[in-house]
């Protein structure tokens, strides 16, 4: 057991830092640093740079084109990217459908889809949830019926994150409605340009557009796009949900968030002194920092287990729970630090990158929308109530 990095690891860290400094577009870095919203192209430019280097799919095994990072290297990579204000990697291709394809897909599918995910030339989105199927995902109703060498898909998906930017969507669809709900589900890859697909925005409470409804009206999908066997899609879904829960703790981003918060607390005034000197507020930050550290070390312990051959089990649900609460707390305290200057709502500046001058400091207008928006973290990817349900059943045997 050793907390210190080996010389090789230190060398690796230096390489990563140098790479990020050289390849992260300055405008993207600035947006991330200042907490601004990123556009599709911002993500793509960075992810393609990572792709060229072979680092985008840093969690993949070597066999499928991953860099074969050790757990320590992964940790270093994620942290340095966050420290250097790289955007978070959009997980839908690299962390979700990619691993499903290399685990359950045919050789043709691997050859067809994996390169574009590795290089980030195709944008994926996730089509799981439906209006009537959120927490109870297995109750989903979007239907796929066989018609020759195609499926005909009908139904609707909802909450698709960045579906309006996506080239492809991976979907859970119902291929058998007579069996137990979990047993009639299949995993389909669908080109978003196929006729019959409509995307309709859902506006979030901060006024932003990041999620969508996706409607399928007699959409023809080749049978070749089925991953795994028909009616065995639930296996892929569960596999993916476990993967999803790990990254979602977002520890490196939260560490960065705490630093950003401290900077704001240094800039804000409280009775003529920097707010960070206010004992009550300083204690709240300290408390938050301790929570982040506890989460980080828990994640390191899980990574270390995985390094010794384990798969992430249901206990990673605990990471998502704490991680999401911490993300929320960061935004809550950031807004608290800014106080009444969080009140002005400046949609132009927030969403359209206009040249409008901010009211108060530049960071002020982002705080409340971010707080509002981050309420999502305890809901998506399996709500915290559901996560706790899973832990109590699978880990505690209740």
């Amino acid at each position: 057991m050793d907390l210190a990095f080996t010389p090789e690891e230190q060398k690796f860290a230096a390489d990563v830092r140098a790479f990020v400094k050289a390849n992260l577009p300055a405008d993207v870095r600035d947006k991330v640093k200042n907490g601004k919203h990123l556009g599709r192209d911002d993500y793509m430019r960075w992810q393609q740079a990572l792709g060229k280097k072979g680092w985008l799919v840093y969690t993949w095994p070597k066999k499928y084109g991953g860099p074969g990072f050790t757990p320590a290297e992964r940790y270093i990579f994620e942290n340095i990217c966050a420290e250097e204000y790289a955007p978070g990697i959009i997980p839908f291709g690299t962390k979700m459908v990619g691993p499903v394809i290399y685990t359950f897909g045919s050789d043709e599918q691997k050859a067809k889809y994996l390169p574009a995910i590795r290089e980030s030339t195709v944008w994926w989105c996730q089509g799981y949830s439906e209006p009537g199927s959120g927490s109870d995902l297995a109750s989903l109703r979007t239907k796929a019926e066989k018609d020759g060498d195609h499926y005909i898909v009908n139904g609707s998906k909802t909450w698709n994150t960045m579906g309006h930017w996506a080239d492809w969507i991976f979907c859970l669809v119902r291929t058998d409605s007579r069996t137990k709900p979990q047993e009639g589900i299949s995993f389909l890859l669908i080109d978003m340009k196929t006729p019959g697909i409509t995307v309709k925005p859902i506006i979030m409470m901060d006024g932003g557009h990041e999620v969508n409804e996706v409607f399928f009206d007699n959409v023809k999908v080749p049978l070749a796009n089925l991953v795994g066997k028909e009616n065995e899609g639930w296996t892929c879904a569960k596999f993916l949900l476990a993967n999803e829960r790990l990254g979602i703790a977002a520890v490196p981003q939260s560490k960065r968030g705490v630093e950003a918060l401290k900077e704001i607390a240094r800039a804000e005034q409280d009775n003529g002194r920097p707010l960070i000197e206010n004992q009550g507020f300083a204690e709240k930050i300290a408390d938050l920092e301790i929570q982040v550290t506890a989460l980080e070390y828990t994640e390191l312990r899980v990574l270390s287990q995985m390094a010794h051959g384990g798969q992430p089990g249901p206990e990673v649900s605990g990471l998502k729970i704490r991680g999401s609460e911490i993300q929320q707390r960061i935004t809550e305290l950031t807004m608290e630090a800014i106080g009444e200057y969080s009140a002005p709502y400046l949609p132009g500046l927030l969403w359209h990158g206009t040249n409008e001058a901010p009211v108060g400091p530049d960071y002020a207008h982002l705080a409340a929308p971010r707080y509002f928006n981050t309420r999502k973290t305890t809901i998506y990817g399996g709500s915290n109530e559901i996560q706790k349900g899973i832990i109590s059943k699978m880990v505690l045997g209740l």
Partner: protein
Amino acid sequence: MDLSLSDEQKQLQDAAERFVRDKYTFENRRKIVATEKGFLPENWAQMAELGWLGMSFSEADGGYGGGPIETMIVMEQFGKGLVLEPFLPTVVLGGGMIASAGTAAQKEAQLAPMIEGKKQLAFAWLERQSRYNLADVSLKATKEGNGWSLSGHKGVVYNAPSADTVIVLARTSGGAREEKGLTLFLVDGKAKGLTRRDYPTQDALRASELTFDKVSVDTDAVLGTVDTAFPTVEEAVDRAIVALCAEATGCMDAINAATLEYIKTRKQFGVPIGKFQVLQHRMVDCFTNAQEARSMTLMASLKIDDKDAIVRRKAASRAKVQIGKSGKFCGQSAVQMHGGMGVTDELAVSHYFKRLTMIDLMFGNQQHHLTRYSAPCWTPSRSWRSPPSGPSATKWPARPSR
């Protein structure tokens, strides 16, 4: 001791409830938000006609002799409907300060038309560095000939875009953050040298940044006496806090009711999600929180007229702490229990959540008021041993006779 509403107060409550029900369906409200002013002048006129703009002022000041309980009653209903008309900045803050510090001429010029619904007010105190310290004011007013000249900046001034008169807190002497040396000025909203940057707020109200560039006013623009505005401001803000608390109570009732309804109807796993015990208990906690918020708001409304400034301050801070805590709990829980629907703009919950969030930040958040409340110089309150001279039920007309 008697905690029940008088008949007149019940009538007022009914009238306010009816107003909200008729004018503030969620879809109606969306339309009002989208109007240029962000509220409806005809609603304002109706409030004047119903006597609400004058109810809390003394008859001598042209009002109907009500008090904090009446304010509490209407604000609570306004909270239920997320009412957008600028009652707080105009009536509670602006009107309150003019009533307490104004000369007869100022009352005639400002308060009387305000009560009739013909004049709106705004209160400009916050500056970039102020945070929650009401005395942290550096906008300067200097003597100039027969009057004063104001220069500096004010931020997040609610209702400034529609205000005929802006009440400005300025430094006339003393150093930064000194309570002495502050003066209130009545400044015409269209005064020369006053520029506005208007914007909506997170919770769909309207506010402005104000820049004062040598704005000249006469001596009679001074509200109260020079250098001694602080106690007036502090008291008016304490009253505004209690009114805000009442609004928050209404928001909590509404958001709890909506959530309860949602978890009874939304089905997952073949049952209404309200069958899951974690949600049941959280829902119970929401109602408990709202109960406590209501209790504290009521207590504060009963004590805010106390002659003893310490009793008054403690009452306001106590209620604000509770509202911050309860509002956050109810708001966050409501969003969570709505799942994905909770984070969208589509349902009313997120709008209540945003308002509750902003209420916590106004005039000092939970932390600020806990610190203020626990200031060691304040003796512990003895609620019933030295009973406050609480307001008794007052009469005011359901419809003014004029």
